[in-house]
């Protein structure tokens, strides 16, 4: 089980990365995350939608309503220019954390 804090911290880069290639809507985002992580990152819709709204308010993504094939309205989200920059910054930060952890794990492994 991944801790609440880690999930909260990783939500932003994951969503931004997800929207990097193509626009998407809420249900699809949830679906993809479940697929990619094999269900280990359990997001609920009650958590995702408010978060999408916050990202939109912060200007990292924007949304538009589209009519889907079945004639239903869907709200799609796409990355903005600011979002791209933010994603790059996030990526950098996560890499530094990742690097730091990597070297520390090595030490932990050596001492075992």
């Amino acid at each position, binding site marked *: 089980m991944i801790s609440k804090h880690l999930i909260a911290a990783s939500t932003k880069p994951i969503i931004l990365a997800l929207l990097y290639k193509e626009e998407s809507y*809420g249900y699809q985002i*949830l679906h993809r995350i479940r697929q990619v992580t094999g269900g280990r990152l359990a997001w609920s819709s*009650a958590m995702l*939608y408010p978060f999408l709204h916050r990202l939109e308010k912060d200007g990292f993504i924007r949304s538009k309503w589209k009519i889907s094939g079945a004639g239903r309205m869907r709200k799609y989200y796409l990355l903005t220019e600011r979002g791209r920059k933010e994603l790059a910054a996030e990526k950098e930060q996560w890499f530094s954390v990742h690097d730091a952890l990597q070297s520390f794990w090595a030490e932990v492994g050596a001492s075992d």
Partner: protein
Amino acid sequence: MFDLEKAVREWKKELGSNPSLEAGFIAELEESLRDDIEELVRQGMPEEQAFRQVAAEMGRADAIGAEFHRAYTPRRSGRPSWRAPRFVPDLAWDYFRVALRKFKRQKFGGLINLSGLAAGLAVCILISLWVRDELGYDKFLANRDQLFLLTIEHPNGALDPNVPYALPPALAREYPEIRQYSRIYRIGLITTCSFSFQPENGPRVMHYEDSVNLVDAGFFSMFSFPFIHGDPGSALRDPDSVVIRDEAARKYFGEGNPVGRKLTFNNRHDLVVSGVIHVPANAHFRPDFITLLPNPLTGDWNWRDPSYVLLDPKVSLASFKEKIAGSLNKNIPQQLPGTFKVGLLPITKVHLGFGRLTYVYIFSIIAVFILAIACVNYMNLATARSGSRGREVGLRKVVGAGRGQLIHQFLGEALLMSALAFGLALALAILLLPFVNNLTGKALTLFSGSGPVLAAYFLGLTALVGIVAGSYPAFLLSARRPVDALRSASSFRSRRSLFRVVSVVGQFTISILLIASTLTIFRQLQYFRTRPLGLRTEHVLQVRYNPSLLQNFESFKREMLLNPRVLSVTRSQDVPYNEDYKTSGVEWDGKDPALMPLIRYSITDFDLFETFGMEFAAGRSFSAELPGDRVNYVINEKAAGYMGLKEPVGQRLKFWGQEGRIIGVVKDYHHVSLHREILPQVFTINPRFTAGAIKFIFIKVSPDGLPGTLRAIREAAARYAPDYPVEAAFLDRGTAALYESEKRLGKIFTAFALLAVFISCLGILGLAAYSAEQRTKEIGVRKVLGSSVPGIIALLSRQFSLWVLAANLIAWPIAYYAMHRWLRGFAYRTVLGLDLFVAAGLISLFAAAFPIVYQSLKAAVADPVKTLRYE
């Protein structure tokens, strides 16, 4: 059949109720919901189940709404704008103002509430102080956890604080668990003890002393009384040294350090003061004089005095108790009738161990009861008055107050009230403290010792009272729907609440209980006073006997009798009603050899029966003309029955091995208050026994010219015994002292009962006032239609009277049971008649009737023109 569209519509409607969920947001969530459901249905789940599962996963409207709100608000834990803040400073001020305004507007109700709470709290404060003092006895002793009093449980279950003198040494020899032991030989209680001190210049200081105690050498290593002068380790090293309590030392030596000074005991034996101790007021044993036991007493199996043991801290108490339980029967040379179980009582429990704990319980319960009555009154008045608060509640709710806020407001009001009441109660307690101290013989203070603990306790008490008293009105008032509250200010005031009935009946039950108890106590006291004791103590003077008087007693007596106002002179071990010396050393013809008799004995002299006006059932009194009477005996009626003697006069009797004849049977007389049963008793005037035992001379004088007679007697006593102090007092005061504790109890219960009745009446006064106020219009209409004033009074008082009657029915059996048990503690007691309960009931009814009739009368005589225009 499940309709998905309908279910989704309902779901959307619920989401829509949350202010932060805009239509667009809901649409987005709806799409997500539908996608999820489709997916699940595709997997084979029924539509209805899929809907429920997905909707549940998405959560409730306010949870999602709060999330969305947080997404749009810059503050992290922002409170949604539509939710009232938990604390609004401006409102707090408003609450305070409203509370004050309400109090001012309804001075009457407010004052009733305030005085009721204050009286209840004051009693609670005073009782708390008393209970704390009672529970704190002997806690100052350093060895308190290892120090025990040896006790004996008699075959009849009675716990005896005294053990034979020979028992502690025998136990200490056998059990290494006992590190120290000390017997307390209370010599001052059995012989005259006087001390004198001759200062270098000035007259001799002489006093008789009762608290003179011979102890074992280990005494001060067991009892850590603080030494003002001297050293506990060496104070009792010398058999001629004496340790004095500070107050006693002051009588003889004034303020200086008396260590090393010479104190003469009974004008014969010089003792050297080796220490001065201070004994805290909350010690159960407060000796004035302590000196070493001159005799090991290892063969003395009489028991009259207490003994203490100091145990090794490692000893398991339970198993040690088991070991020593049978030690008395095992060690004592005689055959005991039954098993006398030796036990240990922790030193801190000794003070409360012999019946006093019951009073601590009773008073604590009374304190809680009285406080409860006061709280319940507050609740009643607050809810009764709530009619007038209805509009306020309604309006507050309309402009956005939540229930929580209203609860806080009303609780706050109650807390404010209890804080005010506490201030008043504190003042009241300070005022009453001298009376309480007088009544209890204690020196309780409010501001000493463990101040912070007490302050915290009082603070907690105040908060508790505020919360308890405020909770019911707070929850009741805040629960009203604004529409109801606004539509009619009186929508529920006419509803007769069960709570109100129960509370009024409950508090009157308590009041009646207390009244009935008070009446019983007084009746028992009355019974004491009027019951013939079998002896007369009026105009009998008690003079302390001393060795000098002993030598010249006959001439002293002769000289006394020359005074025409002196009617009779005798001497005895103690005042006849006060002595309680028992022995088994009595034998008579036809006695069952296996029987170990328990017989009270009196060592006295000629003219005892004449001095005390005791009557004879058979035979005659001792006669000075018959020298043979010195070895003869008088017994009482009880003894004649006990010994099974049909014709006791002339029978042989052996007392402590001395054979004589029974010459008379005196009528039974009462002993040491009526708690005790009359026991078989033997009177002897044998000089072999009188020598050390006599403690008092009794002189019956004629009632006229008392001051002169008293002066003459004092002057003669001083002349015959110039080296001893003169102590003479009339006995009447002594008999009064016999019932001191019952009298005290009577006073305390009177105070409690008055208070309970007072608070209950305050409550009923308030309720009657509001009930009359509510029915103002009804009364107006009734009057217009021709109802009479008495008719209206009857109408208004009927309900309350019924409540009080119900309270009587509940209280009577409880009071009967409780008082029956209390009276069982007296060997001679009054009967519990129905009249007593009826009287208690009538008192309560009258007490309740006063405020009711007063209020009803006020309502009934009011001008109907005005009352109908009211509101």
